[in-house]
């Protein structure tokens, strides 16, 4: 019953805040566009044969000189901007989502275990978390990326780029999950149902997964949303810095970096359309995160 009220209240809040509804719409549209990119994009930006330099630097269709075939214009290589952005968003979301999932599994796993077992294991996990919390996520991600560059043989560098980037981002975001999961687990550990489960002699892994985890999901869901936004931002930043994805398989960050070169020469669409896309994506995810937090923690309103 209580759950039902909470849910209907969430629904009520959702219907009554236009900003949240618009954000949800934007997020869903971008997710759909990114997922369906291979089917709905006019061209394939990874296929060198599909574009030609002859089409280079065409403006969007509503500007003078625009061509109907390239509705958002083309870059200097003649790549269609719509396709680049759809495929770029696909990569950004793929990396962001996988990094977020890895961070969640790792962080929640360690956090719940730390809260459940306590003692020395807890102390070790939390010290590591403390140290990492002192370093900003971007620095951690850069370091992991740098180490990977040093360790991996050169011929594997390119093919593993996406995995390395995902892992670097995941490893710099797990701390939030671990701390929240641990704190919530501590609270649950004092409740009778956990005592009962322990006395009944259930295996610890079962208690953690079946009993504790479902009861601490609320706050974790909020962190997952916020961290998805952070992961996407982090990937965009790394790619923008030239550390992330290379120019032949561009993510949104790489597209913005390429666009920077055209800031002075008047081809505004190469820079500003991917930028607008990235900002719209992150702002709407963050707004949804704020909304979820309000739903799960009515006290903060």
């Amino acid at each position, binding site marked *: 019953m209580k759950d039902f009220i909470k849910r209907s209240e969430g629904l009520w809040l959702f219907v009554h805040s236009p900003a949240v509804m618009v954000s949800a719409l934007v997020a869903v549209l971008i997710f759909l566009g990114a997922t369906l990119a291979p089917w709905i994009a006019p061209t394939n930006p990874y296929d060198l044969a599909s574009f030609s330099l002859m089409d280079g630097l065409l403006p969007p269709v509503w500007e003078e000189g625009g061509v109907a075939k390239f509705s958002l214009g083309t870059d200097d290589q003649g790549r269609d901007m719509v396709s680049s952005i759809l495929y770029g968003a696909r990569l950004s979301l793929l990396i962001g989502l996988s990094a977020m999932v890895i961070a969640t599994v790792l962080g929640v796993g360690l956090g719940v275990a730390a809260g459940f077992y306590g003692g020395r294991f807890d102390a070790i996990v939390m010290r590591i978390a403390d140290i990492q919390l002192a370093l900003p996520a*971007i620095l951690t991600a*850069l370091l992991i990326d740098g180490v990977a560059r*040093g360790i991996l043989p050169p011929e594997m560098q390119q093919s593993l780029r996406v995995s390395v980037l995902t892992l670097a981002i995941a490893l710099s975001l797990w701390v939030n999950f671990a701390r929240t999961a641990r704190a919530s687990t501590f609270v649950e550990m004092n409740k009778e149902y956990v005592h009962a489960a322990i006395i009944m002699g259930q295996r610890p892994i079962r208690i953690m997964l079946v009993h504790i985890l479902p009861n601490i999901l609320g706050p974790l869901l909020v962190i997952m949303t916020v961290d998805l*936004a952070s992961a996407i931002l982090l990937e*965009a930043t790394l790619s923008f810095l030239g550390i992330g994805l290379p120019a032949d398989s561009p993510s949104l960050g790489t597209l913005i970096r390429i666009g920077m070169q055209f*800031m002075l020469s008047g081809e505004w669409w190469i820079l500003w359309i991917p930028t607008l896309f990235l900002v719209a994506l992150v*702002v709407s995810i963050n707004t949804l995160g704020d909304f979820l937090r309000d739903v799960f923690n009515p006290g903060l309103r």
Partner: protein
Amino acid sequence: MFYFILKRLVQSVFVMLAVAFLAFSLFRFVGDPITQMTGVETSVEDQSRLRQELGLNDPFVLQFTRFTSDMLQGDFGFSFRTRQPVAQMITSRIPATLELGIVALIISLFVGIPAGVYTALRPRGVVTQAILMTTLVGVSIPTFVIGIMLIFLFGVQLGWLPTFGRGGTVQIGSWESSFFTLEGWRALILPAFTLGVYQLTLTMRLVRAEMMDVMRSDYIRFATARGVPMGRLYFRHALANTMVPVITIIGLQFGGVIAFSIVTESVFQWPGMGLLFLESIRFVDIPVMGVYLVVIAFFFVVVNLIVDLLYVAIDPRLRVKDVS
């Protein structure tokens, strides 16, 4: 209180040791230093002789001790890429980053605290709603996009401010400062603002949350009833009590500012430590990466110590008993 400070000092030493260990492991295990230093034509005998001479065959603990004592004496080794001493490369870059960070921090405090107080006192006002909306968007826009927008608006469209480099600098001893020329200040504005935006919103939100909390408390109600003038009530009674958490976060954030300057420096081609670090990652220049890490950690530790001392200055309770 003395015990409190001492405890923090000991903790700091351990943190620095841990970071030094990390930097050392980076240097020692990510790639073989010998292959990095020698070319393809060096014979195997020469390589193993070099290995022996450099002490790379010694026990691990001995190597680490030597590494640490070298660092304490200011010997940070040589860059793989430029063959220059790392100490020199980093110290020549420190002033640029530090000046940028300090100005960014000042901007964020001088705008963030008043904005936080205002939005807490008028929670339903139109201005408050506008400010809150702006900060929400501000947090969601990545730093580099803010930088690009500022460059586009003030550098390209309006042509008011330079968009890269430090402009005019004045050399004071070994410190290259941009505080003493007009050009230097002009070049500093955009990057410092870019770097400060995130801290600004954070400071504002924090001050706002703390202020709203404090304003609800009994002693403020009592002070209002007593007829304490509004200005004194807000700033002397209320704001002073929000300062402990605010200072903690700002202190911790200063380290973040220094690290985040990597992005800002890249956008504005600001010749600081962050730009150096980026180059060192791109070229897998492990010694520079390691030393950058140690230097950043040192900043963190020093700032945290200062924050701890500020606690004592702000919160009189800490002067009486040992709370840690």
